[in-house]
């Protein structure tokens, strides 16, 4: 175990970790907003909206994240949309997470007892009101665990952004290894950094779950 390498690498990797954090926070924020919007769309009373959302989710789930990243970074410029690698990474991760979060939200709301919807209909509530005031407040507890899983996947998926030259944690580690040839120490350190980041997220999720009202 080459400790000198570890000591040298830690601050360099910390820079990579910061970049990973920046990308992931942005992607999580956008992904959640997108995912919830799509989730509501999946429950729309307009068939055209439901079908459009379904098609989008199908594509996102049916193609590998790496391919989606390449599409955003290398393929979009061909039709004139050019993002730098940071934004390409954020957008690819957001679009991907959005598709999965959509399904989480939709399934959670549809899993709520049909009687709740019928009771709301019986007092004259409209579709939009039922989703917003009856189903959504009850769905939170069911949404939180799978949502956390998806966000963890997103953080891990950010490691793929090294392929489009984003200087995130994994890429930073790869550069050190390319020069100093100490894969064991470096990858172990990288794993620890990811573990710390993901553990923080998991802790936050459990805390929120406890704080949510029980019913």
């Amino acid at each position, binding site marked *: *175990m080459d400790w000198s390498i570890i000591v040298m690498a830690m601050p360099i990797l910390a820079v990579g970790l910061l970049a990973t954090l920046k990308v992931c926070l942005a992607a999580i924020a956008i992904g959640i907003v997108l995912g919830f919007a799509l989730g509501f769309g999946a429950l729309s009373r307009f068939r055209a909206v439901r079908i459009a959302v379904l098609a989008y989710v199908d594509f996102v789930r049916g193609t590998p994240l790496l391919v989606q990243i390449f599409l955003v970074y*290398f393929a979009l*410029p061909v039709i004139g949309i*050019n993002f*730098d*690698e940071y934004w390409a990474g954020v957008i690819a991760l957001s679009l991907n997470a959005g598709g999965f979060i959509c399904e989480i939200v939709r399934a959670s709301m549809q899993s709520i007892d049909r009687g709740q919807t019928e009771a709301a209909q019986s007092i004259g509530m409209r579709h939009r009101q039922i989703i917003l005031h009856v189903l959504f407040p009850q769905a939170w507890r069911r949404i939180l665990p799978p949502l956390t899983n998806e966000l963890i996947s997103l953080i891990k998926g950010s490691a793929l952004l*090294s*392929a*489009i*030259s984003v*200087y995130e944690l994994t*890429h930073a580690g*790869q*550069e050190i*290894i*390319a*020069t*100093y*040839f100490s*894969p*064991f120490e470096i990858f172990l350190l990288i794993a620890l950094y990811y573990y710390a980041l993901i553990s923080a997220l998991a802790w936050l999720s459990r805390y929120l779950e406890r704080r949510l009202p029980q019913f």
Partner: protein
Amino acid sequence: MSERFSRRHFLQRAGAGAALLVAGLPRLALAAGLTLDEIKKAGVLRIGCEATYPPLTYRDTSGTMIGYDVDLANAFCRNLGVKAEFIDTVWSGVIPSLYTKKFDLVMSSLSYTAEREKHVDFSVPYVEASQAMLIRASDQKSVTSLTAMNGKVLGLKLGSPGQILEPRLDAQLKSAGGTGFKEVKTFDDHPAAYMALAEGKVDGVLNTLPTLALVLKNAPGRYAIVKGIGADNWAGIAARTDDTALIAFVDQQLHQFKSDGTLHTLQQKWFGFDMHLPDAIPVLS
């Protein structure tokens, strides 16, 4: 009483053993060096390479590995009486992979660097690895030398000689009064860097001259080359430091191919010109 002691003793031993195992993992991979007889008995010599590196190692339309390195390796393997097997690998991890024994030699133009020489045994030079820079054809009037890259974005491949050279180039630009590179983007392989160049995300990509010459040929009119970047350099075939017999064999074969014209034939075939290869490993500053 004896039970308690022996259990603690066992745990101590197990702990020490585990620590040794973990600490010694890289070293454990280094058993005694390979002998030529062992290789002959195995019937195959495995060579780590990067399959997106024309014209040294790349795939033809049927997916078969071809190139200067493939022909060269086939030649000396034939003389040893074994088959050459090329193993495509992620370039940034090629030396660690060598030590986990995924293969026994490294080709695809592993250039000489002081750091690498500490970790592997190199053969004498087998190919030129001087750097040149690929630019967009539309830029060839304005970008005629490295100084034009002040304030521009450079594209590199992770683990390539270009990446190792970059800090020196940046210092060179700055000491001549320029601002240096505006940004450096590092990709996992050269094709990704070329694509980024074509799409305007980077303004120049470093790679070895023969490889870039092939890029020009394959995408006519899209790119241009700026020569004379950095000092002359070469690449050697690398093995684990323990495998002295193997490297001695490769050295002997390379000397033989130089005198009997094999290298000349291969270089004409794959590069279109003869390379100047020193007879000994170059001394690096």
